[in-house]
Structure formats: structure tokens, C-alpha cells
């Protein structure tokens, strides 16, 4: 854009004492300052072909390479997705379709699948839910952060926000609220089928939550004992849970409120179709890919009912790049916008040459 600093105006913007006589009488004459006289040095961008068209081309030239870069990156991400909801009658999990929250024994099913390409880097294992409105206003509110932070009084006296999931059988629920109550409780196990033998793949369940969540936001109740059972004394488990919060995991640093699966669940998703990080598959050595191409089987302990509200459940295996998971959108968007800008630049140039240029001289009369 055109830069037109008016130096002259700046120059006479200084306060002048000419008008004010040296007398004691104070004049009401306004100060002759650039600010008060509204003559501050100013830049006046004017939309002219000379300034606008280059901008279009420059935007185009910058955006297209960025877009290509993002697109390529996104395409290099390996991703594999299995819908195991079981709505399809042919699906192995079809039998579990109408499972309820606490059905015993748990319904299990196994889905076999084949990876055509190896997953070279660390693989992230997600579970995905669709049509699950974790962003519902009352749902989002239905938690007690101070209880989750280990506040003892909140533990026994959950916030009103948790209603009606704050007490059960006259005992306070820990963790209270609808979010916790509806925690995803399927168990997914992954096996590589190598020559008909199922080799279990190590799924790392730590490091899936935000570090700040795990270490700052979520804390187990404090007390003079390390025994979580004792610490959670006087509370009861959420209605839908099969077991209380202190029995989520066997490891002490992943149990109770600081169970990472729980923490991940408590971070409510933005959209009704979302995925949540479930496990990490770390690359063992540099020689082998994390997941080789080949046959795999997924063992599912099917506890989580989604069929009633037309929800879908998925298991996703994905590698990630510097910009996160696989999503071609941003790359395409950049390329498109860049192209549009470029195109617009050309069109405007043509228009300008056809109509603008000739008339410019006539527009300010000679």
C-alpha cells in the first residue's frame, strides 16, 4: 500500500507561541499541536491497483507453497481406522450392540484387520466417538474441578454443578458429574498376527494426557496415607462405573483422579465427532517400524453403549507429524486460497487495464 507520510504536517505540528502574548492573561486559544489540531502524521492507504494487485500476488505466492507443504505432510501421515460399533450385523461386535453400562460379564469381541503399509514412527492409538455431544452445555458444566484437584472438602461435598450426579445412595460421588459418569470404558487391546500367533503389542497408557492436567489440575485427595481406598473413603463410584475411581488402574501414579484415561476423558471434546488418545505405541528400535505391515487383531471389551443415541465407536491408529494428525483440509485450504488470490490478482489486473487505466487520467479533470 502506498505510504504517504506527510512530513510537512509533522513539521508545523509543533506548538507555536506566536499567538500567545507574554502577558499573564491566559488565552483560551487552543494549542497548536498536531494532536489537538488533528494533524498527526498519518498514513493513508488507498486502494489502488499499484498497491492492491501486488498484495494479491504476494499472498498467492506465499500461500500456495505453504499449502503444498502442509498437504504433503498430512499425506505422509499413516492412519488406520476401524469402526467397531457393530451396527452392521456382520460385524463381530454386533452381539454387543445393546450392551448396558455394567453388564457382567463384559461383552468382548475381536476385529481383525490388515495394515498395508508399515507405521514407521510412534503410533498413537485413539478411540473415536461420533454423534457424541460431549459439548452439550449442561454436560460440559457437570464437573467439579476442585474435587478433581484433590480438595478434600469438595470430595465429600461436590459442587452443585455436578447435580444430579453428585450423590448416589446418600454418598458423594467421586468423581462427580455427568462427564465422569459417562466415561469411556471400553478396553482395546492390539495384537499382531504373525503366522497365526497373536503377539500382543505394548500399549503405553501413560503420557496420553496433558502434562499440566496430570500434574497440576488433577490430583488425588491428600491424606496421611497413600492408600487411595482410604482416601476415597466415604465416597461412592459414579453410577455408570463398574468400579470405583481408585480401582481404575493398578499403578499408583495412574490411579484415582490422576488416571490418564480419566483425565483425557474429562477434557471435553469440541465437536460431536471426536477422537481421544487412548494409548501410545512407541517405536522400539530404529530397525523396525513401529507397526509393520501385516495382519492385526483388535480385542475389544465392549462396555460403552452408544447405539441408543446413534453413536459410533472407532479405533484409530495414526502417526503424527509436526502439525498433528492427518488432516488434508488445511493444506487444501492454503492451496485454494493462494490460487484464488492469484486468480483474483489476474482478474483485477485485467479489469484494471480494461477499465481503470484508461479512465484514470479523465477522472481527475485536467
Amino acid at each position: 500500500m502506498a505510504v504517504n507520510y506527510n512530513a510537512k504536517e509533522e513539521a508545523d505540528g509543533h506548538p507555536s507561541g506566536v499567538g500567545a502574548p507574554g502577558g499573564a492573561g491566559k488565552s483560551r486559544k487552543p494549542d497548536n499541536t498536531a494532536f489537538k489540531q488533528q494533524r498527526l502524521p498519518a498514513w493513508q492507504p488507498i486502494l489502488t491497483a499499484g498497491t492492491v494487485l501486488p498484495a494479491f500476488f504476494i499472498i498467492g505466492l506465499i500461500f500456495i507453497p505453504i499449502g503444498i507443504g502442509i498437504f504433503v505432510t498430512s499425506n505422509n501421515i499413516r492412519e488406520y481406522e476401524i469402526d467397531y460399533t457393530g451396527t452392521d450385523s456382520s460385524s463381530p461386535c454386533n452381539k454387543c450392540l445393546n450392551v448396558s453400562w455394567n453388564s457382567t460379564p463384559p461383552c468382548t469381541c475381536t476385529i481383525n484387520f490388515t495394515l498395508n503399509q508399515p507405521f514407521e514412527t510412534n503410533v498413537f492409538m485413539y478411540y473415536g466417538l461420533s454423534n457424541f455431544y460431549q459439548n452439550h452445555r449442561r454436560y460440559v458444566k457437570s464437573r467439579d474441578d476442585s474435587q478433581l484437584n484433590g480438595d478434600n472438602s469438595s470430595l465429600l461435598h461436590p459442587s452443585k454443578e455436578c447435580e444430579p450426579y453428585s450423590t448416589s445412595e446418600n454418598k458423594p460421588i467421586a468423581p462427580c458429574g455427568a462427564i465422569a459418569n459417562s466415561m469411556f470404558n471400553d478396553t482395546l487391546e492390539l495384537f499382531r498376527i504373525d503366522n497365526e500367533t497373536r503377539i500382543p503389542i505394548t500399549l503405553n497408557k501413560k503420557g496420553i494426557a496433558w502434562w499440566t492436567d496430570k500434574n497440576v489440575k488433577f490430583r488425588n485427595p491428600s491424606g496421611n496415607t497413600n492408600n487411595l481406598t482410604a482416601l476415597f473413603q466415604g465416597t461412592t463410584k459414579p453410577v455408570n462405573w463398574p468400579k470405583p475411581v481408585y480401582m481404575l488402574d493398578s499403578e499408583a501414579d495412574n490411579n484415582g483422579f490422576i488416571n490418564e484415561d480419566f483425565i483425557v476423558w474429562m477434557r471435553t471434546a469440541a465437536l460431536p465427532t471426536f477422537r481421544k488418545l487412548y494409548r501410545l505405541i512407541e517405536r522400539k528400535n530404529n530397525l523396525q517400524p513401529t507397526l509393520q505391515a501385516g495382519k492385526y487383531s483388535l480385542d475389544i471389551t465392549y462396555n460403552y453403549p452408544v447405539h441408543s443415541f446413534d453413536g459410533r465407536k472407532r479405533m484409530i491408529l495414526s502417526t503424527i507429524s509436526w502439525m498433528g494428525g492427518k488432516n488434508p483440509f488445511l493444506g487444501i485450504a492454503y492451496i485454494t486460497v493462494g490460487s484464488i488470490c492469484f486468480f483474483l490478482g489476474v482478474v483485477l489486473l485485467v479489469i484494471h487495464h480494461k477499465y481503470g487505466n484508461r479512465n484514470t487520467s479523465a477522472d481527475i479533470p485536467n
Partner: protein
Amino acid sequence: RVRESEGKKKLSPPKHRRRRKRTRTVRSNLLLPGPEAEKPQRSPMANNRLKTTKYTALSFLPKNLFEQFHRLANVYFVFIALLNFVPAVNAFQPELALAPVLFILAVTAIKDLWEDYSRYRSDNEINHTECLVYCRNEKKYMNRYWKEVEVGDFVQLRCNEIIPADILLLSSSDPDGLCHIETANLDGETNLKQRQVVRRFLELDSEFDPLKFTSVIECEKPNNDLSRFRGYIVHTSGKRDGLYKENLLLRGCTVRNTEEVAGIVIYAGHETKALLNNSGPRYKRSKLERQMNIDVLWCVLILIVMCLFSTIGHGLWVWQYGEKKPVFDVPGLDGNYLSPVLAAVYIFLTMIIVFQVLIPISLYVSIEIVKACQVFFIHQDKDLYDEETDSQLQCRALNITEDLGQMQYIFSDKTGTLTENKMVFRRCTVSGIEYSHDANARRLAMYQEADSEEEETAAKGGTLSQRNSVSSHQSIKVVHRSLSMKSHRRTGSRAEAKRASILSKHTAFSSPMEKDITPDPNLLEKVNECARSLEVTRSHEQPLSKLTPELSDIFDFFIALTICNTVVVTSPDQPRQKVRVRFELKSPVKTIEDFIRRFTPSRLTSGSNSSSSSSLTTSKSMPRLGSSILSSVSSESTLLKLEEKLAHSPQMNNNDYRSQQDRRAIGCRPEEGELRYEAESPDEAALVYAARAYNCALVGRLSDQVSVELPHLGRLTFELLHTLGFDSIRKRMSVVVRHPLTDEISVYTKGADSVIMDLLLPCSSDDPRGNHQKKIQSKTQNYLNLYAVDGLRTLCIAKRVLSKEEYASWLKSHLEAESSIENREELLFQSALRIETNLHLLGATGVEDRLQDGVPETIANLRKAGLQIWILTGDKQETAINIAYACKLLGHDEEIITLNAESLETSATLLDHCLQYIESKFSNNTIDKTAGNTTVGFCPLSPPSSSVHSSLGLVIDGKTLAYALDKTLEDKFLSLARRCRSVLCCRSTPLQKSMVVKLVRDKLKAMTLAIGDGANDVSMIQVADVGVGISGPEGMQAVMASDFAVPRFRHLEKLLLVHGHWCYSRLANMVLYFFYKNAMFVALLFWYQFYCGFSGSSMIDQWYLIFFNVLFSSLPQLVTGVLDKDIPAEVLIGVPHLYKSGQKMEEYQPHMFWMNMIDALYQSLVCFYIPFFTYYDSEVDLFSWGTPITVIALFTIILHLAIETKTWTLFHWSSCIFSILLFFIVALVYNVSCPICYPPSNPYWTMEKLMGEPVFYLICIISPVVALLPRYSILFLYRTLQGTIFPTQLQLGRQLNRLPPETHSQILNRLNIKKETIPQKPPCAEHSPQNPLSNDSDCFKACNHTPSLQSSQYGNDPAFPSNTKAEHTTGLSVTASPPESLLCGGNKQMESMSVEETFPWNTTVDQSGFSLLNWITSTPLFSRFGRVLQLSPHRLQNEAQDNMCVLGSISSLHRDFKGLTGKNSNDFQEQLKGTPTNCCKSETLETTFL
């Protein structure tokens, strides 16, 4: 003490008292015994404390809140905030939701508090003014504050004091028991009004003693009728006297000309008539705000639609799940699920909370802030400051600044608004001989010039006077005087100016300039001659008739000027008292007996006036020489001092020496010090001052005698028998006096020429004397016409000598008339008519009411800006027309329609007739005009005024106006008035003025501005959309009623064209932006509802949501609203047409609201869906997703503003950067501050984490680009196409500003010229045949850059005055002019440069050569320039090269040349500079586009 009583009984039961009291009883406070007076008795009557504040410290909070909740928006926001406390529907944390509302309320409350505090301070100032109140214990008048004055107190007032309360006048130092008051503060009338002491107290022989006042006053309850006061006073003797308004001194008036008065307070404080009349400030709502409110309602509607949509959506969403309750649908508190319908209803309320931002909460408060800042800047504009009076523009209405940019009609008062309201005596004619007072005119001209040149000359008076000393000595004196006055004014600086402004309140004149009149030497000589011979005649006891008729006429003329008025003489040195030299107590002839007694031939009883006066003044009337010169009179003293200095200068010539001697001869006056004349109208004072310049000075006036100081004769005392005051029907006033020299009874009459001429004594043409008279009359009439053309106010002076018998018979009837009760006015009128006949014409005067500086230019510019200017004046038709001509409101080529009708029917037919006439005329002209318009090509917009026939002026007088404003005729009148370029309403009453304004405002739906200075303009000022008061000498009434007060009329130009435009465009843009911003932000939330089951969830953290408007995005728009300049001031002033954009509301039209809404919709879609798709099916959580959206929205909104901002200053940059930084800082701090707070969002570490992710930055870059791309490119496309094919004015103005300064100013000139010339199609060539000589020069001037040089070559062209030389030099400066000129000419220039040395003129000729060609083709002077062409052949070559350029510009140059004619030589240089750049303009423009 005092009490209200019901009727007269004081004993009736108290419960009835309140209901039945009709009168108020006032007793003296002094009567009560001391202790009782001390008792805190609760008086039902207000004391004199003024309290205009709304709040007290305690009541502020509740009262202010109460008032704020009158604003619907506040109620709405509080309601919504309170909704948050209902758990079922709440969307945000309730406390947080209250924050913005409280913030807004607090800001408003602080503003109110501040306003109230300033009111409190001004109240305090008034309350602590001191006045003299009689104190019982001290037995004298003591100083007390106004607020301590109570009803029943005795107050003594001195001259020039302001009356603190409504006071019943009980005593006056005036022997006649009169008190003069000036009511300017109340009704704006500057003349003095008489008030009378209550009759019985008048007859007291001893001095009035408050302690002896035992009477009881019964009067009306306080009311606001200024012209009525009734009551009676009951004396202890039981007698009663009536009280009338003549006995009441009203609060706010000023005591004048009366040394001391005393009275008892009747009404105090808020019960005074002045305060009861003062209905507080009105709340005006600007047009823009009205329009905005409509759009706010639209917003409400949109909000409701959105909420309903969500409601239905949520209902359906809940319903689709039926009985299978999903886990994420949380049941109610009691564990039961809501039914879909109930859930939907709750959601509706929730949605209102969530979407509340759509109604911009900060809009109103932002607008208030912006307007306050705009007002600040208007205040600070030094161009709106008047050095002379040290006053600046005041904005009294804070909320209608933007209306200034939308005005369509200006209604202006004349006197004091367009003119200075300082009458200056300019010319006179006596007995048929005109005395032009050239010297005086020159002096005035010099004065003005010197004043304007003040900066340059810088007090180096010597050089100036030296230069002028070559010319006549008279002018030396003049120059010296003007210089001395100037320097006096300058060095005297503020204090002097202040003093002058104070004095101007007391007298009609402030500056010495107007008071001094340089006498016409011829006339002065005649006067002296006359006086000398009179002296001779008197000393020789010869009859006066020995004087030649001419001399006697002159003598009488000046006598008439001096005594035929109601001027009151005061002397400023003493505490203003009447200068009275009372010889004997005599009242005007009251009875026949009196008459007989006083007019008996023996004259024993009364004694001789003349002898007594001369006996008193003999010693002084002796001619004195020498010593007393310096001690002589008043304003003359400066003059005399200068003259004395000059006496030593060798250049003195005889003529002046003699005049000086004359002065010395008469230089002494009985009083030392200055006499000041206070007159009802400035005209009168001007005439008296004029007479004094001829040494015929009024030195004293009593009710029965007038003393005049005459040269040689000394003091003459005229016995004043009657004064027949001025009235607007007779249009004249007369005095009946007894001439002290001849003892004749003379009537001196002064009045409008139209009436006086008819009343003259018919003279037979037979006798030579009559013949002579006739000649004189016709000559005088001629001169009068001349005066009128010059715009002078004319008055005729006439005389009649009455024989005793005539007088006796008239007196009889007159006394009857005076004593009659019924029809007194009518009879007096008839009586006056009887005596004012058979007059003998003495002469006529021309008094100038000088136009204020720059009025014609301002009017011309305002007109070009599309404003219709109407003048509504109380003045008479002739004067009004003259002034209209003088200020270029009427052109001399204009046709004037004058409407004077005597009845409703005649006015109806007159109007019809005129309409038909115009219709026919108009239809003839349409073809012409359309043709004219097509050639213009520059302003495709046809303003409303273009449909007006350009050369029609409408003049309508008050009476006809009254008919025209009748319901049946008003439409016709309006349609007629709209057709006319200018409308002049004369003799209109204040009410009519306001009716006219109202009519235009209501019927034409036009924006009206009324400007005036006096109280008679108040109603008009109040009715108009914007009222402007001129803070002049006419009191403060107009200013108090106005919305803006300017010191001068010319300030209106900048106020409207620049500030009005700016304020309007800024505010319009800001309002639109506000709507856009909120809609865009809210739409983000709305889109989200589709993905959260319409549950009212928001992805944007509630903190961001709530503070987005108030904190993060408010500053840039405020800065833009305050500081953005779409077009710089010079361009706005230079191209007044730009103002039309405001009139047509171009910046804020209804569709623009919707355009902005659609844009907001689109942008919100972009800002929502880019993150949506980016994060679709990812592990992103609600607020990690919402935060980028907020950031994107913020970027987009600020970038949007950046696109809309036309001028970027440091403030813009910093505000934008500040806003963004503020958001990030707040977000970062907020996100680390507390891991468990702020449910439900709990944004702990969200921002920090986001800022570590590249995707965040990627979407932050792309989204604003995509969001703004359409607006940007459409805007560009629009501007390219519009700017090139159909340039709008604004667009052009903007482009103009980008051109280099020289080109810029030149184009500005061009644009102006072009507009001027549009209606006048014929080029200058067509003018030349009519008046070849003068028009030649016009053409030369017009085309100065071309032919001036030729003309110097052929320098003896008679059409060219001496300024050719100057043009030479300016022409040369072009050759040496800036690089632009090089740029322009290209090779041509270089070529000619090389020749420059040898042929210096040629280069300049070359530069302008291209235009010459075209000029020649259109000029009859072709042949002359043909020779020039032959003489410089190589220039022709160049022209051939430049042909392209020339041809393209031919047509426009045509017009330019014509338009340039009016330019004065100061502009020449600029034009010349501009010329070279002229041709390069196309290049320049191209560069701007590439």
C-alpha cells in the same frame, strides 16, 4: 416573617392551606424580633440558593442508577445478567456476566458525576456572588452571598449589578423613581427598560428606610410569565397600591444607568421568573442515532430469530432421542429429564444470554465517549477560535456532533450573525449635497486591512506610514490611527480584549474604531461656519433666519442627530450615573396649564433656558486655545494626541492645520473624561457618535431636557417637550423640543426613508424655494437609493417647526390621548401621526452594519456544499435585501420574487402566481441544464439544489410570512421556497422564525440548522435540529439555548464542512462497524449451536466472550471513531461538495447495515469453519478449539477495521497492537492463573499449549485472509471502477490528498472553479463583447498563466493594471519552480530550459503553451495572440508535441478559465505553480494506480 396565605385569612385550618393558597404574602424580614428570626423556621418559600445539580453525595448512586435504567438497553443487559442467576438457563458465571453491565453503568455514572460536579461548581459561583442586603443589626446594607438572600430581604443594587432575585423596586436614586434595567439575559433585548418605584414610595420625601417598611405585599404565586406581575401592597394606614410588572426587577437582569436602587425580595431562587423560564437542557437525538436505533431494533429481531431457531433446534434434538436418554444429555437437578418443549423454552432464555452480544452493549457508551472526544477536538480547533474576543467554539450539546455533517438547511439571523451588529456611520447627505466621508471609509478599510496583515507587518508601523506619507496627509493620520489602534489592540492583548468585551455589554460600541468617525472635511467646514455665524447671530441678537438655508439645514441636521433619539449619556469614570446637569426641576408638559404657564410670552416663570444654560456655561463656551487639547474628550483623545505629534511633522498641510485649530477651538468640554452613549439600537448610537465627530455632542439627557455641546456656542439645552418613540408601524421617531436659540417649537423626526418621504411638506414648484426643496428631495432620494445599493441602513432626518397655536392644539389632543384609558396606544399613535406631517427634509444618513469577516465566502462555500441558506431577520425588507446582496446570498443577476401581501387571499394568489411563473421558467431551463450537466461529468449526483432554478431569490415579509405559514398555504410556500436559491424572510417575529424552521424540518424532513445571536433567535435555535449561537454582544441567551456556540459566522464553515463531515463519517463508520463486529462474533456462537445440539454451549471461553466487546476490541474502534479522517480538512474546505455525502447519508444507509450483516455472516462462517475442518475428528477439546476461533475473530475484526480506516496515525497503530497484545496477555495470564477456577471452561494452560502448535498459527493466518478477501477485493473493484468510471466525491477527495502538495492544491482550485462555472456555461469570451475592456482584463486574469507574460511583452495594454509587474515575477518563479514542473513537461521542458537564458519569457510561455492553444480558439482576442504565436514559432512545435495532452483537457480548461475570473492576485502565484503540474497530472495518477 413571611408566609403563604390563603386569601387574607391566616387562621384557616392548615390542611386547607396548601390547596387554597393563591397568593403570596411578603413582609419585611426586618420587622420580626431578633430571636424569632434566628429560629430555624421552615419557610415554604424558596430561598435564593441556586441548585441545578441533580444529585447529592448520598442520592447519587440510587438516583443515577434509576436514571440509567430509564435507558432500555441497560435494563436489557441487567435483565440478561440476572438471568444468569437462574440455574436452569444460565450460560455464564453469574458474577462474571454482570461485569460488563456494571462496567458500562460505572462509566456512565462517572460521566454523569463529572457533569453534575461542573454544574455544582457553576451553581456555587453564582450562589457566592455578593450583593448588598440590609442588615437589621448593623442598620445598613451589608455584603451577603446571593444564596443567603431570602424573600422579604431588602436588597440594594448598584449600577451594573446583576439582580439576584425578583425584587420589588422601592427606591431609586433616580429622582424620577426610575430604574433602567437591561434584560438581555432574559429575552436578549439589549435596550434598556424602565422600571418604576412603587408609587407611594416615590412620593416619600426622605430617603427610603427599610426599617420603616411595614407594608405587606400580596402578590401572585411564582409563575414563569415574564411580562406579568400583579399584586398590591397594603400599607399600615390601610391604603393599598397596585403593583405591576413595572415595579418588579427580575433576576438575571442588569441595573443600568441608575446609581442605586433598593427593593424587597418577592421571589427568590428557583421561584424567580428567570429560573422558572429556564427549562433545562433538552436531550436531542441525532439523526444518525435515530437511524441507529432502528438498526438496533433489527438486531433485536435477528436475535429473537436466532434464539427461536435454536429453541426449535434444541427441541427437535431432544425429541429425536425420545426415551433413550443419551449420557451426554444431563437431566435436571432433580434427576428427571426435561421434556423437549420445556427444554426448548429454557434454551430460549439461555440463548438470549449467549447471543446477547448481538445487541452491542458498549455501543451507547462508546458513542458517548467518541462524541465527547469529538467535542474535545472541535473545542481545540484553533481555526474556530476568535482572537479578538478570546472565545472559542463551545459545544453545549454533546450528543449531536454528527448532525453537523448532515445539514441541509441553514436558517440564519442577520443582525449580529451575518453582520457585526456594530453600526458604523458611513455617509450622509444634507440638503441634497452628499458627503461621502471618503476619509472615514478609507480609514475603515485601512483598519481592516491592517488588521488582516497584522502578522506580516509585525508592528513595524513606521514603514507603512512612511510609504503612505507620499499620499495625502489625511491618510497619514488615518494610517497612524489605525496603526496605533491596532497596536493598542494587540499589545493591550487579552486584558484589553476582555475589557472591550465587557464594555461591549454596556455600550453599543466596543472598539474605538467604530466610535471614531473621521469627519468629511467639507461638511465639517460648513458646520463650523454655521456655528460661527450662529454665535454671531446670537451675540448680536439677530434672528436665526439669517443663516442660509443650507447652513440652517446642516445645523438642524446635526441637532436632530443629536437629540432625536433615546440615547442615554453616561460617563464611565464615575459609577455609572446619568450625566445630569439639572437646572430646574421640570417635567414634560403634563397639562394645559403647564403649557400656558411655560409658554407665556413673558417667560418670567420659567426663565429662559438658553440664558440659564449659557449663564452656567459662559466661561466654558468661550473659545479656548492650546492647553486643554490633551484633556479633551474621550475617544477623540487618541486622535488628538496623534494629531499633536503630527503637528511637529513637516508634512502637515494647511487643511489639516485648520481643522486642528478648529478642534482646539472647541476642544474643551465641561466634563473631563469620556462620555458614553447607551442606546436602544446601535444605529442611534452611531448617529450620535457621528454628530459628535462634528463637534455636536450630546452631553446630557434628562426626561425633560437635552443638552448639546456645540462648537462656538457651547452648551445648548433643549427643552424636551415630547418624545414619540420608535415603533415598527410608523417606522420613525420624533422629538418635540423647544429650540433654545429661537424659542421655536420644533419637531425632529428620524425614520425610514419610505415613510419620511411621504410625510414631507408638499412644495409647490412655482416658488423657487419650493422648487429648490423639490430638487433636494429628489437628490436625496437618489442618494438614498445609492446607499441602499451599498447595503447601508438609511434613515431620513426631517424637521418641522410648529407655531405655538399648532402646538397648543396638538398638545390638547395629545394630552387627551395620553390620559385616556381605552385605546391609549391607538390614540397616541394617531396623535403622533398628526404631528409628523408637513416635514421639512434635512438630510439622510447611511449607516453600515458591517458584515463579519468572511461571510460572503462562507455563504458561497456552504452553498456549494449543498446547503440551502435562508435568512430570517426582524429587519426591514430593504436592509435585509441589501445585506443579502452584500453577503452574496443574492446575486445581482438573480431574479427576486418579493412576496408582500396584505391578506390570506392575496398571499394565496401571489403564491400561485409565483409558482406558475417559476414552473414556466423552469421548464424552459431544464433542457439547458441537463445539457450543462452532461458536460460536467464530474458530479453525476444531482443534488437537490440543482433542481432549483439557480437565479431565483425569494423575499417575503413578516406579514405575508404569517399568511404563508398558514396551514392552507404552507405547502405552496414550501414548494416555492424550495425552488429558490435563497430565501429571505424579513420583519419576522421570533415565533415566525421558529415556525419556518419547524415547517422545513417537519415537512421536508430536512436537517435544519439555525444560527443566531440574539434572544429573538432562541426559539428558532431550539426548534432546529442543530442550534448554533453566536457568542456576541447580544447577551448569552442564544448561546444558552444553542447546541454549539461559535464566535463568528465564518466559523460555521469549518464546523460544518470539516468537523461535521468528520464527526458524521467517523460515527457512521463506527456504528456500522459495531453492528458488524457484534454480529460477526455472535454468529460464531450460532454456528456452533448446530454442533452442540443447540444446547447453548459456547466454545469461546466466557471471559473472552464477555470482555471481547468491552476490552479486547473496543479501543481500535474508539480511536478510529475519534481520529479517523477520511478526507483531510483542506480538501473538505476546498471542495465543499464533499459535504453532500453527509446530507445524503452516504456513509450510513439502511442497506449498509445489511451489507455489513451479510459480511459479518460470511466472515463468521470463515472464522468458524476453518478451525472446524482443521480440527474435525481430532482430539481437540472444547476450549482449545474455541480459543483459536476467538483469536481469529479478533484478528479479523481488527483487520476489518484496518481496511475501513482511512488514515493511520500512531494512535491507530498502537491501539490495534495494544488490543491484540492485551488479548494475548490476558489470555496467557488467565490460562495460567488458576488450575481449578473458572468453571466450566477451566482453561488452564490452553493458550500456552496452543501457542506451541504450528497449526494454531496456520489457521490464524489463513482465516482472516479468507474472511477479508471478498471485502477487500470487492472494495477495491468497487473503488477502481467507481473511482475511474464514476468517481464519487469522497473517493476523489481521498485520491486528491495523495497527490503531491502542489498538484493537490491546484486540483483543488480546479475543482472549485469547475463547480462555480457549471451553471454559467458561456466561456469568458462571450462576456467580452459587452464590456470589452474590463472583461479583457478578466480574461487575462482568468488565463493569467498564459497571457500575462504576453501582456508584459506588449505591456502597454490598457486593460492591464500595474500588477503586470507582479505577474512577471510570479511567472519567473515558475521557471524556477519545483521538480514537478520538470516532470511534467518532459522533453519540451528541457528544450525550453536551454533557451531560457536568451529568451527568458519563452520558457514560461511554453509551460502554459498547451493551454494557450485552446484558449485562443475560444477568444475574440485571437488576433492579438496570433501575433504572439508567430513571434515564438518554436513554441508551436512544442504544442504540436503536446497536442494529445491539450486536446484531452480542452473542455475542462474552458471552464477553468472562466471560473478563474474571480480570483484575486494572491491566488495567482498558486495557480501559476499549479500550471506546470497540470499536464503531468495524468502521469501522476497513473503512478498511483500502478
